[in-house]
């Protein structure tokens, strides 16, 4: 049994246009991915691809107008999407914890840092305040907050962005999670701090034996820190597999375009890829969601693309994968 297995997840945004007619934006269109114990999976894709939305659905954080249409998200065999709030609360913040992208605003501004780490412990286990406070200090030391005992007394506004992100990592570790979900954990941090935070996060994840699902649009982050990668476009995972395979031999035209668009490749004389508009979620093309932008699309792409297995664990959702792959090799 996989640690996490998302199956055919569909989420729509339901609203009205200016004339009051119902409008549906199909944001997630059958997301499926699996994560094994101890794995680190990077979820990449452009803005609006549905990376964060996938995680929000998983964590029970969808709010109107987002609507879960169908799908399952099995965590250790339990469907998270079918749980009521109380049961879900037992898991989130404990077995599954989250590191979010805006650390400074995600901490309660009127509570001491230490108290917030105590609060998340006491929400999930009957621990005494003194005990939880001691663990809070330990955790702060572990994530590299100097002078932890004194800093635990401080308030969030007294922390820099990088330090606040360390606090969030401490909170994510507080209840010994088996899965940590990091949603763009380094957005808004200085480049040097980004590397520090990611090094810290991944080393602690390994130390704790937890799994990591990291959302990013930075392909370098995935290459450096993850075992597996899933590439997302218009609410669909178009390609997934081990990092070396997907990045070494990208099969899906979108993955190829994405990799070609990294500054390093363009500098090295690579041809800049065709720019495309972000997909219109209200009017996705029939069949393959990428067909409007795809340079090799043909008539067959108007039908649902097949999931092609290319190597162990490496798969792509495309009609044209097999010949393309041979041409590359």
């Amino acid at each position: 049994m996989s640690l996490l297995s998302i199956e055919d997840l569909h989420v729509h945004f339901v609203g009205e246009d200016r004339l009051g007619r119902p409008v549906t934006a199909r944001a997630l269109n059958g997301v499926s991915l699996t994560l094994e114990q101890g794995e680190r999976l990077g979820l990449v894709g452009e803005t609006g691809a549905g990376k964060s939305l996938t995680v929000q659905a998983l964590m029970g954080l969808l709010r109107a107008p987002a609507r879960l249409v169908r799908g399952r998200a099995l965590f250790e065999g339990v469907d998270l999407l079918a749980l009521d709030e109380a049961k879900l609360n037992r898991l989130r913040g404990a077995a599954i914890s989250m590191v979010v992208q805006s650390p400074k605003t995600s901490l309660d501004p009127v509570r001491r840092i230490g108290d917030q780490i105590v609060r998340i412990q006491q929400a999930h286990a009957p621990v005494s305040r003194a005990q939880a406070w001691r663990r809070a200090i330990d955790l702060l030391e572990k994530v590299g907050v100097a002078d932890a005992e004194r800093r635990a007394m401080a308030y969030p506004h007294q922390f820099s962005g990088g330090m606040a992100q360390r606090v969030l990592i401490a909170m994510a570790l507080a209840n010994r999670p088996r899965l940590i979900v990091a949603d763009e954990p380094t957005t808004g941090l200085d480049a040097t701090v980004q590397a520090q935070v990611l090094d810290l996060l991944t080393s602690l994840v390994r130390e704790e034996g937890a799994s990591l699902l990291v959302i990013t649009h930075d392909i370098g982050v995935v290459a450096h820190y993850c075992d597996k990668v899933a590439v997302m476009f218009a609410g669909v995972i178009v390609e997934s597999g081990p990092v070396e395979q997907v990045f070494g031999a990208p099969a899906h035209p979108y993955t190829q375009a994405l990799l070609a668009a990294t500054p390093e490749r363009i500098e090295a004389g690579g041809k800049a890829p065709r720019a495309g508009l972000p997909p219109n979620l209200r009017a996705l093309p029939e069949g393959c969601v990428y067909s409007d932008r795809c340079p090799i699309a043909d008539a067959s792409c108007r039908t649902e693309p097949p999931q092609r297995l290319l190597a162990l664990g490496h798969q792509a959702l495309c009609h044209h994968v097999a010949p393309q792959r041979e041409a590359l090799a």
Partner: protein
Amino acid sequence: MSDDAAASSAPAPGSAPPRRRIMPALGPPVRFLLRRLAMVTPILFGVLLFTFVLVRLGGQDPVVRLAGPTASVQQIEEVRAELGLDKPILVQFGIYVARVAQGDLGRSWLNNRPVLADLRQRLPATLELLFLGVGLGALIGVPVGLTAAFGSGRAFDQISRIVSLFGFSIPTYWLGLIMIFVFFSLLGLAPAPMGRISLMAVEPPTVTGSYVIDSALARDPEALWSALGQLVLPVLCLAIVAAAPIIKQTRAIALDVLATDYVRFARASGLPRRDLRRIVLRNSLVPVITFIGAELAGLVGTSSLIELVFAWGGAGQYGLTAILEGDFTAVQGYVLYVTTFSLAIFIVVDLLVFLLEPRSRAS
């Protein structure tokens, strides 16, 4: 580490960097309070000047009225000189400020009594009405606003919005008149709207000036009952007017907090609903208190209309009468009292905010 620089410069308890302090022995709240109090004098001076000029621009010549319709020009000028109104306006103002500084607000031209004594005597009546009315309004408004925000869009929220819209739209004095008509004239449930205690009851000996407290102190149940009965309608009237904006504002504040990253993150952390509500409550507290403070100061004017309708005989009614009669010294005294009251409220609010808001203590 580059991001440590910002972090370590933040102050923490017990290890403040050694720097020169002007008031070393005092705690931060006291120093904060002193800083606020230092601003009071210039504000009061500005208000005095403004009022002083404004009443004299009003177009009314009080001297003509005071001297009477049969007075000759010479008599009018005599009265003017007697009141000191023949002197240049700056000189008049100088004399006035010098007297105010000594605690002398002058005498009313209408009844020739010291303005300060009149205001002081009437103040408890106004404060009683104002604090009870706004207090009751907050007691209704804050829970209703919070409940509406927690169940945003549901039936309770919709009903509370309609109710508070009514509260907003109703003119205060009209509400007072209707209440008198219904509860006194029609139903006979309320006592006659004539002052703070029934004409039949004996006024309790003055200790605080509040009839409720004084009659309780004097162990006079009859007077206490009467004083409470007289309070019901005007307090209710003020509470309705005060509650409407408090509901609306509390709801908006709580909705803002509910939409913050930290509430979202708390949900993602699996905190139980009870904890989430506590976070919302605690973070809404400062803006709600600030708003209620502003309401309290702002409703001084509204409450004088209620005083008038219920013949309350408080400072508000005194001020209204003075304005209508062109009684300069009384108007000036009244405005000074309203300003002082508002400043006192704002200082208390500032102090509360200072104590409740960690970010304000940082600098």
